[in-house]
């Protein structure tokens, strides 16, 4: 109790500096957590695309028709150079055993192979499965559990085999934007159940697709396919598509990261400086404690406790925000992924700060013998 009181008195004597630095650090960490969550979101869509399957693919988007909708033309599949089309379709509503309804998105066989989503539990859709199966985002699992059965509008029973990790954006393929990039093909906070139906699709395919040519197609056939796609809508090669994705990611990083990083660097340096100053200022007081019989370890403990408490407060505030008020970290955007992965860098930073605190106390204080300390500060 005495140690706590003495630590608090160290903070009280420098309260203004500690308060300001603490505020700057809290804001910096909040902005940084939010920026990292957004970064995880925009890169998650890119990471879900399987490069080895899509290397030869051409991404294709139909323009919107006069009613605002368009569907993938079936003639694309009929083209001699076309091997397969990675696309999705709406499966309508599905009902679980409890009577709850879910929107469904049907994956083609090619889509299951080309898009791999990180799983929280269970397993991902198996392209070789004989029976229909489904996965849903873990964030929207509701009362569902692994092995549950959902019934599609045509009566098909689908087994739930896995939960996609947290807030992972799910493939949407409904965007006819003129600037196709990975993040635009995926939709955040999607409560859809992703369904794999072997050998068939329900509904009409979405207006965006990755068209994969046959390996044995001649250059002439490939060119004819490219020209055909270009005559229908907008096309871009997989390399071009990924290049645009990287540009999108780069632009988002430029916009979101510099301010929190600047603030964090400044707050950390300021915190170290203010801590060093607070330790310097308490030297006379500590030397009196020495004279009165206080051990060096305890004296250092008083100072370390005070400084580490200030370092810990911004981390604690952000942990509370992360788990109790995640919506606060959204900053008006749905495009973010929080999750436990963000916890690790936060805890690492905290650990580094604590280590620094003890090192600082030892550096400024611990290297003196009690006698040297009296002479330095009380003379």
């Amino acid at each position: 109790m005495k140690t706590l009181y003495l630590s608090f008195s160290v903070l009280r004597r420098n309260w203004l500096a500690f308060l300001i630095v603490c505020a700057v650090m809290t804001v910096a960490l909040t902005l940084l957590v939010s920026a990292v969550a957004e970064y995880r979101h925009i890169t998650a869509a890119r990471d879900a695309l399987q490069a080895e399957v899509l290397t030869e693919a051409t991404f294709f988007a139909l323009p919107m028709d006069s009613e605002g909708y368009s569907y993938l033309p079936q003639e694309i599949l009929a083209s001699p150079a076309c091997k397969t089309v990675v696309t999705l379709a709406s499966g309508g509503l599905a009902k679980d055993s409890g009577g709850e309804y879910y929107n469904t998105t049907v994956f083609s066989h090619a889509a299951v192979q080309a898009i791999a989503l990180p799983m929280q539990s269970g397993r991902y859709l198996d392209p070789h499965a004989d029976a229909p199966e489904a996965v849903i985002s873990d964030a929207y699992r509701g009362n569902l559990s692994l092995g549950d059965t959902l019934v599609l509008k045509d009566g098909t029973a689908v087994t739930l085999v896995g939960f996609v990790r947290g807030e992972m954006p799910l493939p949407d393929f409904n965007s006819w934007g003129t600037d196709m990039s990975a993040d635009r093909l995926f939709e955040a906070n999607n409560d859809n159940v992703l369904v794999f139906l072997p050998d068939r699709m329900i509904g009409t395919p979405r207006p965006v697709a990755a068209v994969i040519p046959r390996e044995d197609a001649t250059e002439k056939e490939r060119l004819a396919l490219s020209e055909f796609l270009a005559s229908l809508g907008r096309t871009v090669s997989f390399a071009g598509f990924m290049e645009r994705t990287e540009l999108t990611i780069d632009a988002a990083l430029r916009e979101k990261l510099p301010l929190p990083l600047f603030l964090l660097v400044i707050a950390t340096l300021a915190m170290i400086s203010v801590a060093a100053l607070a330790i310097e200022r308490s030297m006379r007081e500590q030397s009196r404690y020495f004279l009165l019989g206080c051990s060096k370890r305890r004296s250092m403990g008083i100072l370390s406790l005070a400084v580490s408490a200030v370092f810990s407060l911004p981390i604690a505030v952000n942990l509370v925000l992360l788990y109790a008020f995640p919506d606060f970290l959204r900053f008006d955007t749905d495009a973010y992924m929080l999750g436990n992965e963000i916890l690790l860098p936060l805890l690492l930073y905290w650990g580094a700060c604590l280590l620094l605190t003890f090192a600082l106390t030892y550096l400024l204080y611990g290297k003196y013998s009690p006698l040297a300390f009296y002479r330095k500060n009380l003379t």
Partner: protein
Amino acid sequence: MIKKCLYIAAGKLKHFLTDNPFVFVMFFLGSAACSLMFLYFWGNLQYTVSTSQAVSYTATLRSPAQTDNGTLFAIAETYDVRMDAIYALSDETDAALLCTNRPENFSVWGCEWTDLDEAGTVIVSDISLLPDEFARKLRTVGRTSSRYCFVSQNTVSSLGLPATEIRLTLPHTISSAKQTEFLQTFAQNTSHAYLLTETTRTMPVGELLGVVLPMLAVYLLCMFAMLYILVYVLEGMAYELSVYGLLGASNAKLVLIPAIVQSVLLAAANGGAVLLHVLLYDVLFSRINLYEFAYSPAMYLQASVLMLALSFAVMFIYLRFRIGNYAVVNFRRNLQ
């Protein structure tokens, strides 16, 4: 007397730098980081303001005239002016062609802009229909979601259409003399057939303050956290200054001595940050900018003056508050 103050300040500065180098290294690094952050804000803000306020004109056709589109586009290119010429095709509908020297500002599908090089080609709009008369004459090479159909200068020339409206956006770096010269050249080459109206958008003061004030507040908050270290400087000098006060030194001089020490430290940190920014601009700082632009010496100067003015203001207010008017009071306070 000033010389004496400078001498004392120099001695104190040397003493502090050697007595506790750790705190001063932290101060330099922190202040330099604050300055770098401010430079980042300032540069991007200046660029945003200058580009959003690019001088622009709209030229509206007021009398029938046969103007050579090629010549107008050549003039625009000479002055690095963006020129979008619009050709209304029908009085009943809003169908129109657009010819531009900055195609990168428009999105098209199923084609490249170079596909328009051939005369008689068009990129059709998904929104507005091309009148039959023109649809028969022109070959479609692609599509766009713009309300205009895109054509090249060759096509416009072959159709013999006069532009009904020309939108001109001047580069933000253009001087007023060059601007006048361009407008005169443009008017002469169109035989004054167009009415030129300035359509420059100026950023409202409220909008500008909405960006600048938070920027200054963030900088001041960060700088205040670093300036707190300078309290250490003052505390180290307080007793000596109070003795000077008892011996008859004026209050202004008592403020001046720590102010010189602290100003040197601040200016050095700021100068170091600017130097670092210049040296590492290509490898680091240009990559974190929101836009691609180069910092001019004027931008560095403006940012430095603003940063130092803000820091000095905070510092002087603190010193004036800390060093009271009565020498005896100062002395008693520092004896405790």
